[in-house]
């Protein structure tokens, strides 16, 4: 997948990955890979500034929890505002993909 296209939709992708439930950064990346069937393969570090930015914008909340191997890990969760933002993103995305499909899909000629 083209990196620049992916970056433009990174916020929506992260919010969607967290819709299933709270997760840490590594878990978010795994979820994105799994649900995109490997198509979205970003440099893993890209996700962290985006998570931080979304948290600053009030769309995510985060807290430290004790993880395995005595390591602390930061777990992110959608806030109410994050849920609303994801709903809006989904609606816009459906309209957009529908319109693009109409334009570049196989043309149907009126008989």
């Amino acid at each position, binding site marked *: 997948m083209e990196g620049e296209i992916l970056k*433009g939709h990174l916020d929506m992708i992260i919010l969607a990955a967290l819709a299933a439930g709270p997760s*840490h950064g590594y878990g978010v990346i795994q979820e994105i890979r799994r649900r995109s069937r490997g198509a979205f393969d970003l*440099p893993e570090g890209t996700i*962290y500034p985006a998570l931080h930015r979304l948290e*600053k914008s009030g769309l995510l909340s985060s807290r430290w929890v004790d993880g395995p191997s005595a390591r602390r890990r930061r777990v992110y969760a959608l806030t109410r505002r994050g849920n609303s933002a994801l709903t809006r993103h989904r609606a816009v995305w459906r309209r957009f993909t529908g319109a693009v499909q109409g334009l570049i899909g196989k043309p149907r000629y009126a008989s």
Partner: protein
Amino acid sequence: MPPETIAGYLAALRAELAFDPPLCARVCAEVQDHLYAAIEAEPSGGDEADAVARFGSPHALAEQYRVLSLFTRMRRSGVTLVLAVAAVFVVMEARLAWYALTQWNASAGLKAITAVVLPIDRYAFLTAAACGLAGWLYALLATPSTGLSIALGALRRCQLLLRIAALAIAVAVVVEVFLSLYRFAEAGASTAVLLPAATILLEAACVLAVALSLRKTAHRLNLLPH
């Protein structure tokens, strides 16, 4: 040469994020957990060099955090400015109340000068209050964009508003200092000038705090790639 171990990667990241120590501590802890989790997730035992390579360059990561950190820094400068403007107002009112309480009336000469410079003082103060509030609100409400050029544009607009406010409050304080010194010179050596002189020093300290805060922010902003 790019780092090939987790320790090397974290050392490089710490050096890159040295501009914001609390952010650095948080990011390094998260990255460390991520890299070890990535290795543990490999069924045959992962390789540190692979995990580090997949994560991306510490420099590129730090550049993204630099923008986020600057928004926080700009908000802090906005708060400093708004508080300084409020403090200057309170201190100025306290000085005028002191003059009224001690019946220290202005001479005819001072009244003539005040009539000329007072509009400058008043409009400068109003400009500082309006631009300071606008700059602070802009920094507070602006969402850090994924694109560097958009984020830089927002930061520069915010910086411009705060700079105008800082210049305006400096002008207002200079006028206040001038009028006060004129009054003190007329009164001669007297203990009555001590309290008004202290208020003037407080106002100057507020302007200095604003200037230092904006200078630090400007320095950090200039370090971003253009």
